[in-house]
């Protein structure tokens, strides 16, 4: 690991000042991704600005929803009574991620900004356009089983690994940011970029911008929501594919819905085509399949991850079918891949 200085700023303003104009400074949250990437030689900051002591750890009810401090640990987030009651989809997605230990360390901001688990990105002996722009993308012809089927480019086919971000993309969350240029909010989806010809940029954040909070607007039909994750083992593994969905059904017709997909793109993928196909449609498995097909019409799977398209279709249809049951839905068995 490269030597670095460690700073613990007194407040948000001094944290932003400490990182401003210093491309080799990095904010440190729980460290569960950054410390690992530093050890692997993928991240080589010269200064760590520890923001855990100054990031809010509060979860508050605002008029229109919940305001979640950037420093809230994932474990505290999923356990919070307000979150469990008002945003069960968010609590469920967080609980599906990582392990108890990691959730106790991981912060909301760090979770959103964690980097891809593409094996080439994490291996400094290999080329990778995300790590070293212009060096190539070996995943395209190599190991891309876990990588993207939607929205990728010839330059990068990585996926964003966060479960929490998928729920936040479904819930129209707003990310509060402070930076050298002042404060702003960034909507989700919209925080994470598609790779295009700049795969080294995961998000739209400018260098030095600090996430301070995430706002999750109230969703009237939040109770009828579900996060369903498919992974290679029953627990403690990243998503192969995942679905965050909320459904508002009346008289057998879909009045409204929110659908976001994980494990399939460089960003948590809001399934706008599926949502459009569903609004006003009958709440039947046939219509759910039609909506899934509308979304997947935009996909371009690679040779070794083509299985993700039918897998996603099945998981989406099943999740929506469960949600459409008149009596709500019963939790069912975790899905495992063959």
């Amino acid at each position: 690991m490269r030597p670095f200085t460690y700073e613990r700023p007194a407040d948000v303003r001094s944290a932003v000042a400490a990182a401003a104009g210093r491309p080799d400074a990095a904010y440190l949250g729980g460290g569960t991704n950054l410390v690992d990437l530093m050890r692997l030689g993928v991240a080589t900051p010269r200064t760590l600005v520890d923001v855990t002591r100054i990031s809010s750890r509060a979860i508050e009810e605002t008029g229109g929803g919940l305001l979640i401090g950037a420093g809230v640990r994932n474990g505290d987030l999923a356990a919070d009574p307000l979150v469990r009651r008002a945003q069960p989809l968010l609590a469920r997605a967080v609980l599906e991620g990582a392990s108890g230990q990691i959730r106790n360390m991981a912060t909301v901001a760090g979770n959103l900004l964690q980097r891809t688990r593409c094996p080439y990105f994490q291996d400094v002996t290999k080329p990778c356009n995300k790590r070293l722009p212009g060096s190539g993308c070996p995943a395209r012809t190599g190991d891309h089983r876990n990588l993207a089927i939607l929205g990728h480019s010839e330059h990068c086919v990585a996926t964003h690994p966060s479960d929490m971000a998928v729920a936040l993309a479904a819930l129209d969350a707003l990310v509060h940011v402070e930076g050298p240029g002042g404060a702003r909010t960034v909507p989700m989806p919209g925080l994470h970029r598609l790779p295009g010809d700049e795969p080294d940029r995961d998000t739209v954040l400018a260098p030095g911008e600090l996430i301070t909070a995430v706002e999750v607007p109230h969703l009237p039909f939040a109770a009828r929501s579900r996060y369903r994750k498919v992974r290679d083992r029953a627990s403690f593994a990243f998503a192969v594919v995942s679905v965050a969905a909320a459904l508002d059904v009346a008289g057998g017709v879909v009045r409204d819905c929110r659908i976001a997909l994980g494990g399939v793109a460089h960003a948590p993928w809001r399934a706008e085509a599926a949502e459009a196909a569903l609004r006003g449609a009958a709440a039947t498995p046939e219509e759910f399949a039609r909506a899934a097909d509308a979304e997947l019409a935009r996909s371009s799977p690679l040779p070794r991850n083509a299985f993700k398209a039918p897998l996603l279709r099945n998981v989406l249809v099943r999740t929506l079918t469960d949600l459409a049951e008149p009596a709500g839905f019963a939790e069912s068995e975790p899905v495992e891949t063959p």
Partner: protein
Amino acid sequence: MNGETDITGADGVPDPVTADLRLSVNGVPRPVTVDTRETLLDTLREHLGLTGAKKGCDHGQCGACTVLVDGRRALSCLTLTVTADDVEIVTVEGLADGDALHPLQAAFIENDALQCGYCTPGQLCSAAGALAEAADGWPSAVTPDLSAPPRLDETEIRERMSGNLCRCGAYPGIVAAVGQVAR
């Protein structure tokens, strides 16, 4: 802390940065001087003689390095020591009360919850943390109802302990031991 801002040596290679800290480990103040790059796992094992926490993977993937930080389970291999000077750290060495084993330690012995024992310190600290989380009403991914207090049946224990791998496959004993203490 004595982190100087210019850390570039004459040859362009940054010099190591050190920090003087006072850790609190198992209730005892422990002054240490560490390189900022050092993880809590290495500090515990190499500087403080506390070799209970184990290095299984050094990447957050196995749980062998689990300790308690302010009462919550955490991975010492992903914790930079320099970040841990204002928290209470408890390692497996701090679980027992003198010669009286922690109930989890006794239950692990009684239930044959180990073979080689390499993962055991991490399993014990993780189980202690998991029991505290459940006592605080925290749900898990398999908790059927987010609004009801969790019941620590086998499914719950397996899910809550999934961050701790055991290469010897002592899982049935581990689940039984944790379940015995949870009751």
